[in-house]
């Protein structure tokens, strides 16, 4: 994930506990930000928000300006998207599904139909729930991840939910689309092979 520009801010001044913590929780659940800043104005809210961020594996720093207390949380390494699973006590690692997409259309026969099916497939993929771990796009599959692609909003939605998306760099370069990729991490063959090895189930398209 391109993290650094994802700073979310909350103004929780004048609010009594547990509201500042609830606002922080709602923001993290909804946006899954890399960094978050919460401004509070009392000691109880400071301690509770810091505690909540640390519980969600954020590294915290606190600065005081007059009556305002600014708390900045930065996501610790390797925690993106996992906090909800931890919260619910579900074992996210029980089954990790990897979906390998090697074309921008589904199946052979009619290309228009294939494109429609692929769009429908991506938009419905979220129904796999927490077990959907990673999507790898190779060959013309990378065209689903570029600007203007019909599947782009759905892939972004999945990424926000914590699904990891890897997009093949060699393929992007081949189609001259490197600059147009809008979702996921650009990746190499070693990462793809490691992902296939780590996954519990691989679905090939």
């Amino acid at each position, binding site marked *: 994930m391109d993290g650094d520009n994802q700073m979310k801010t909350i103004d929780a001044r004048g609010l009594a506990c*547990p509201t500042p*913590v609830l606002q922080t929780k709602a923001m993290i659940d909804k946006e899954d930000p890399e960094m978050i800043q919460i401004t509070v104005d009392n000691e109880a809210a400071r301690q509770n928000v810091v505690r909540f961020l640390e519980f969600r594996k954020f590294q915290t720093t606190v600065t005081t300006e007059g009556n305002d207390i600014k708390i900045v949380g930065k996501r610790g390494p390797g925690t993106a998207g996992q906090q909800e699973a931890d919260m619910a006590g579900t074992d996210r690692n029980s089954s990790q599904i990897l979906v390998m997409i090697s074309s921008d259309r589904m199946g052979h026969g009619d290309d228009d139909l294939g494109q429609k099916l692929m769009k429908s497939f991506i938009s419905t993929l979220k129904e796999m729930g927490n077990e959907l771990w990673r999507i790898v796009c190779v060959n013309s599959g990378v065209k689903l991840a570029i600007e203007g692609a019909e599947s782009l909003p759905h892939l972004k939605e999945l990424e926000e939910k914590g699904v990891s998306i890897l997009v093949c760099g060699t393929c992007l370069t081949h189609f001259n689309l490197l600059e147009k990729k809008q979702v996921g991490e650009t990746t190499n063959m070693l990462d793809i092979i490691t992902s296939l090895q780590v996954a519990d189930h691989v679905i090939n398209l």
Partner: protein
Amino acid sequence: MIVGLDRADDAGVYKITDDIALIQTVDFFTPIVDDPYWFGQIAAANALSDVYAMGGVPKTAMNLVAFPIKTMPVSVLREIIRGGIDKLKEAGVVLIGGHSIEDNELKYGLSITGLIHPDRILTKHNMKPGDKLILTKPLGTGIINTAIKGGLAPDDVIEKVTRQMAMLNKNAAEIMSAFPVHACTDITGFGFLGHLAEMIWGSNMGAVIQREDIPVIPEAIEFASMGFVPGGAYKNREFRESMVQFSEEIDPVTRDILFDPQTSGGLLIALPPSHADELLSRLRQNSMDTAAIVGYINTGKKGMIHVK
């Protein structure tokens, strides 16, 4: 008048004859659980608790109601009152009246009147060196209530804590009446350490608390670690911090739990060490399974509580 406003205590006491004194208290608050019937029970258990804490026997009650009649169905009010009356019945107390007003925010509580022998009044202020301290209910209801507000407490936890808050201190009071108890209070808004601080201040004593012996609702530890500590716990801590010395190994979450404001909390009882074990086993036999001896009174550092 025997106990009044000059010394902060659980209820006021007024002597009528050499054998009979009147004990009076009032308490009301905003809803803490969603279920109106249970809220009514909790409010009644909470109001009755002050009388039990002073060794009295509650006799009559009056309702206090503030209700948003324009925006809330009257069935909610009926359920609250029903909960209150059922709890009063359990306590053997008669509802003899009450008063209600219209208010934007729902509030319910009761004024309780009871009887007590003037020579058998249990105040907060008569602790003796060596007294053992017994706590009859586990701590953490304020934290759990905060998590309930945040929608994070699972149903089984809500139910467990609701039942605990609705549990009368009647049994505990009746059992303790057979023992030579020196002082007693009920744990409510000031939290465990806040109320203990009042007791040692009034008795001019010090106290030692063993952290590992304090009964705590297990989920409260989890929710406090997540940041669901009510603002009241911090206020309580700020107010009494100078009277409490924590050993270094006591973690911040534990400190918050010890200051967590309780709704309809248990009794904190001080009595001679020779009777403490027997009282404890009697309490445990009567469904207060988590009751525990949590510390003792000393004269080493007067006005100080040491949490080890």
